[in-house]
C-alpha cells in the first residue's frame, strides 16, 4: 500500500495542472521518570509489616502468590528516559487531469532517540493512518485505499473502498464501504506484534469489514443510521456486528435535541446511548442530558463474555458569558453502574460516582487571558480533586506565551498509593510565517506519593516539548483561508 501511494505521488508530480497541500507536524519530547524493578524474596525471609501483611526486612510490602515459595514486590528502578520524535505528514495532491480526482495520505513516523522504548505509540516506526485516492462529483464520492471512517460506532480504519451517493437537494446520503479492517484505535492491523505486548490472544488474520451508512439532513434536523460487521476470515465467525442510530432535531433557533444509540448484534445488548437538550445563544450555552456507556469488545477476545456492565449518567453543563470579557462555566455528571450481579462479600467497590467542574475565563484586555478551574470527581477505581490556572499573553503578533499550573490529589480506590501532584509549566508559540509554527513547552510534574511502605515510588518528572508545524502548498492563498480549506481536496481553485 505504501509503495502504491509513493508511486502515485511521484507519477503525478510532473503534471502541469497539479496542486498539492502538505502539512508536516514534528514533535520532539524529552522525558525522564523513575522506573520500577520487579524483585522477589523467599517467603521464609519476609517479616510482618506495619499493616499486618508480609513485608521485606527493609519495609517493602510484598505479595505472596498462593503456594509460591517467593513473594514479589517492586523496588525503585533506574530512571527511564525517553526522547521520542514523532512526525505526522498530511498530503493532498490533485490535478491528475480528471476533475474531482485527488490523492491523500496521512502518515506518522516515530523514533525514540534513547532507544529505550519508553514512550507509547512509537511502534511501529512508520504508520500509515490514511492513504487513498478520491473521486468526488456532486452526487458521488468514491475512495480507494486506507481510510479512517469516524461515526458513532467509533473510528474505523480499513484498507478497501467506499462509495457515497448523495442527493444534496433532498439532503440524502448513503455510503457503503468494505475491506480489510485495522485494529480499534490503531493504524495497525490486528495482527501487528505492536498491539500484543503481553503476547496473548491475537488473531492470525485481519478481519474483513463491511459497513453501510445512510442519513438525511434537513432544516429541522438530521438523522443517520450505521451498520458494521467484521468477520474473521480464518474462522468465518463474527468479530463484531453492530448498528447505530443518531439524530438531531432543531425545533427552534438556539435549541437542539440530540440522541443516539448503538446495539451490539453479536452480543445481543444495547451499547452506549445518549440524549441531550441543548441551548445556545451568544451569551449562554448549556445542555442537559442522560447517557449510558458500555464498552465494546471484539469477539476475538473473551472479554465480551465477561459481561461488562454499563453505567447510566445524568449530566449538565452551562457556560455563561456574564460580561464580554468574562465567561464562567460549570458542568457536572452523576453516574451509576448497573448491578454487576456478582457476590463478593470480602471486597466492596464503589458502584456510582460523580464528576464536577467549575471554571472562569477572563480577558480583561485583548492580549491577556486568565483561566482558572476547579474539578472534583469520585468514582469506582479512582477519584481526584484539583485546581488549575493559566495566564496567556497573546499580543496581536505571531507569538503567544502561556504559564500554567495545577494541583491534584488523586487517590486510587484499590491501592495504598495516594498521590498529591503539582504541575507547573510554560508553553510558547511563535508563527513567523502563516504556514510555519514553532512551539516549545516545559512542564514539571512534582509528585508526593503517600504509602505506608518504601514503595512510594514517585512519578515526578520534567517533560520538554519542541514542535514545528509546516504547511505548504501550490496555492498562494494558504494563509488567508481557514484550516479546513487549506487541507481540502483540490483547494478552492480546483472547484
Amino acid at each position, binding site marked *: 500500500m505504501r509503495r502504491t501511494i509513493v508511486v502515485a505521488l511521484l507519477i503525478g508530480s510532473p503534471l502541469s495542472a497539479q496542486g498539492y497541500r502538505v502539512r508536516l507536524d514534528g514533535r520532539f519530547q524529552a522525558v525522564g521518570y523513575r522506573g520500577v524493578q520487579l524483585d522477589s524474596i523467599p517467603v521464609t525471609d519476609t517479616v510482618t509489616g506495619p499493616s499486618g501483611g508480609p513485608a521485606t526486612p527493609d519495609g517493602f510490602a510484598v505479595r505472596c502468590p498462593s503456594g509460591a515459595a517467593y513473594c514479589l514486590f517492586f523496588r525503585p528502578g533506574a530512571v527511564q528516559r525517553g526522547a521520542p520524535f*514523532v512526525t505526522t505528514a498530511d498530503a493532498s495532491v490533485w490535478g491528475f487531469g480528471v476533475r474531482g480526482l485527488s490523492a491523500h495520505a496521512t502518515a506518522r513516523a516515530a523514533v525514540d532517540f534513547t532507544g529505550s522504548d519508553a514512550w*507509547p*505509540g512509537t511502534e511501529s516506526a512508520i504508520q500509515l493512518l490514511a492513504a487513498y485516492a478520491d473521486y468526488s462529483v456532486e452526487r458521488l464520492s468514491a475512495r480507494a485505499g486506507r481510510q479512517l471512517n469516524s461515526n458513532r460506532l467509533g473510528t474505523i480504519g480499513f484498507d478497501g473502498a467506499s462509495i457515497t451517493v*448523495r442527493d444534496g437537494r433532498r439532503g440524502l446520503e448513503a455510503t457503503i464501504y468494505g475491506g480489510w479492517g485495522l485494529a*480499534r484505535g490503531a*493504524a495497525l492491523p490486528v495482527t501487528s506484534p505492536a498491539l500484543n505486548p503481553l503476547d496473548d490472544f491475537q488473531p492470525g488474520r485481519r478481519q474483513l469489514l463491511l459497513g453501510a451508512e445512510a442519513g438525511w*439532513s434537513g432544516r429541522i434536523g438530521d438523522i443517520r443510521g450505521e451498520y458494521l460487521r467484521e468477520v474473521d476470515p480464518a474462522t468465518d465467525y463474527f468479530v463484531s456486528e453492530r448498528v447505530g442510530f443518531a439524530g*438531531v432535531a432543531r425545533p427552534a433557533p438556539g435549541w437542539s435535541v440530540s440522541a443516539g444509540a448503538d446495539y451490539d448484534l453479536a452480543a445481543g445488548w444495547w451499547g452506549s446511548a445518549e440524549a441531550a437538550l441543548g441551548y445556545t445563544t451568544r451569551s449562554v450555552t448549556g445542555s442537559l442530558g442522560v447517557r449510558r456507556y458500555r464498552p465494546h469488545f471484539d469477539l476475538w477476545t473473551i472479554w465480551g463474555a465477561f459481561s461488562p456492565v454499563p453505567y447510566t449518567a445524568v449530566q449538565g453543563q452551562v457556560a455563561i458569558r456574564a460580561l464580554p470579557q468574562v465567561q464562567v462555566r460549570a458542568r457536572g455528571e452523576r453516574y451509576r453502574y448497573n448491578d454487576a450481579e456478582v457476590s463478593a462479600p470480602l471486597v466492596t467497590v464503589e458502584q456510582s460516582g460523580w464528576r464536577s467542574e467549575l471554571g472562569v475565563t477572563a480577558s480583561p484586555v485583548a492580549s491577556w487571558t486568565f483561566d482558572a478551574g476547579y474539578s472534583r*470527581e469520585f468514582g469506582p477505581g479512582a477519584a481526584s480533586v484539583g485546581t488549575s490556572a493559566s495566564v496567556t499573553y497573546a499580543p496581536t503578533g505571531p507569538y503567544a506565551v502561556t504559564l500554567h499550573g495545577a494541583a491534584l490529589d488523586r487517590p486510587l480506590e484499590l491501592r495504598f498509593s495516594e498521590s498529591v501532584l503539582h504541575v507547573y509549566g510554560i508553553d510558547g508559540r511563535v508563527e513567523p510565517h502563516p504556514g510555519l509554527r514553532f512551539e516549545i513547552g516545559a512542564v514539571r*510534574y512534582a509528585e508526593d506519593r503517600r504509602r505506608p511502605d518504601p514503595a512510594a515510588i514517585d512519578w515526578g518528572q520534567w517533560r520538554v516539548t519542541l514542535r514545528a508545524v509546516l504547511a505548504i502548498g501550490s496555492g498562494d492563498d494558504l494563509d488567508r483561508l481557514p484550516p479546513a480549506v487549506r487541507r481540502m481536496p483540490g483547494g478552492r481553485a480546483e472547484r
Partner: protein
Amino acid sequence: MIAPASLFILALLQQPAQGFDHVQHKALFPSCTSCHAGAAQERPSLWPDPVSCAACHDGAIEKTVVWRAPTSPRRSNLRFDHVAHGAKAGGKSPTCAGCHTVAGEPRMAVREPVVQRCLDCHEIRTAHLAAPDSACATCHVSLVRAASLTRQDVADFPAPPSHAAPDFLSRGGHGAVSRQAMGTACATCHAREFCYQCHAGSAPPRAIAWLASDPRSTALLARAAPASHGDNFADRHGTEAAASTTTCTGCHVRADCLECHRPSGARAAGYHPDGFLARHPASAYAREAACSDCHNVGAFCTACHARAGLVAEGLLRSGYHDARRFFLVGHGQAARQGLESCVTCHAERDCLPCHSAVGGRRFNPHGPGFDASRMRRKNFAMCTACHGANVPER
C-alpha cells in the same frame, strides 16, 4: 442576503463631489445637462469638455485648472444608466436634483446620488441594507459583472443586519435564503469562492454551484463558527457529528477530525486538556470518554503501564490491588464495571486459570445480559477458548 456592496457604493458616492464646487458655479449654469449632456442623451459624454472650463480658467480671468474627464469606468456595482433609466421610467423619472441634492440645500449643492430616493421610488420600504433579498438586483449588478471593483472594494463591503442573526450561519439561516433565491441575491456581493471558504468538505450545495466564479469574493472572510459550536462543543459534539455528518462536511474535512481522533497518537493535539496525563486514572477508570476509540489498549495503555509496574506478566503478581486484601476473590464487581481498565494490565491468560471450563476452576464469568446461544452462533471459536469443543448450547 441583500447587497451590502451597495452600502459601500453609497459611502463612496455620498461623499461631497470632490474637485468641482458646483455651488460656487451655480450662477453660470442654467441646467445640469449643459455640462453633463450624457445624462440626457446617449452619444455625448457624461462629463463636460475641459475646453469649456478653460474659457474662464485661462490664467487671466481665473486661475488655470487642469482637469480631465475620467477614462476608466467608475468603480461601482450599480446597474444605473441615466439615459436608459430616463427612457424606462418615462414621466416618473426623477430630475437631476431629485437624486443629486437633498431637500433644503441650495441649488446645485450637488452630491452623489441619495440612495433613499432610489428606495422611495422603487417602493422599498426599508433601510438600504435591510431591503428584501429580491430587491438587490433592482439597482445592482452581480459581483462578477462589477468588474471595476477592486479586491479592496469587496473587502470593504459592509454586512447587512440580517447577517448578524444568531442562526444566520445555520442551514435554516443563510442556507434557506440561498436555496430560495438560488444565489441571485447572494451574487450581488458573493461568488462561488466565497462559499468555499467554509463549504470545503463535500460536494457543494446547488445554490453554490449556481454562483459564478470570482476570486475577488474571498476578500470577504467568512470564518465565524456557527452558533451550535458554543463552549465545550468539542466535548459534546459526538452525537451531533454522528447524526449530521453531511452538515459537518460542509465546513470540515477528514483531516480536521484526525487532529484529535488520531489512532494511538502519543499526544493527540487538542483533545485532552493540559495536565490530563496526571488525572487520567480517574477519567479512564470510569470511562469519562471512550478511550479505545482512539487508543489501542495493547499499543498504548499496556505499553506504558508495564513500565510503571502496572502489569501482570503471566502471573497475578504486580500487587496493584494492594488496598484490598482479598481482592482476587472479590474482584467480580470491579471487573464487570471496569473491564476496559483491567485489560490495560491483564491478558486473557490471567483469567483463564479460574474462569476456564477446561483446565480451570470453572468459575462462570458470564453475567447480566449474556446470551450464550447468540454468542455461540456469532463466534463459536471465541467460546472454545474456555469451553474447548464442548460449548454449551445455552
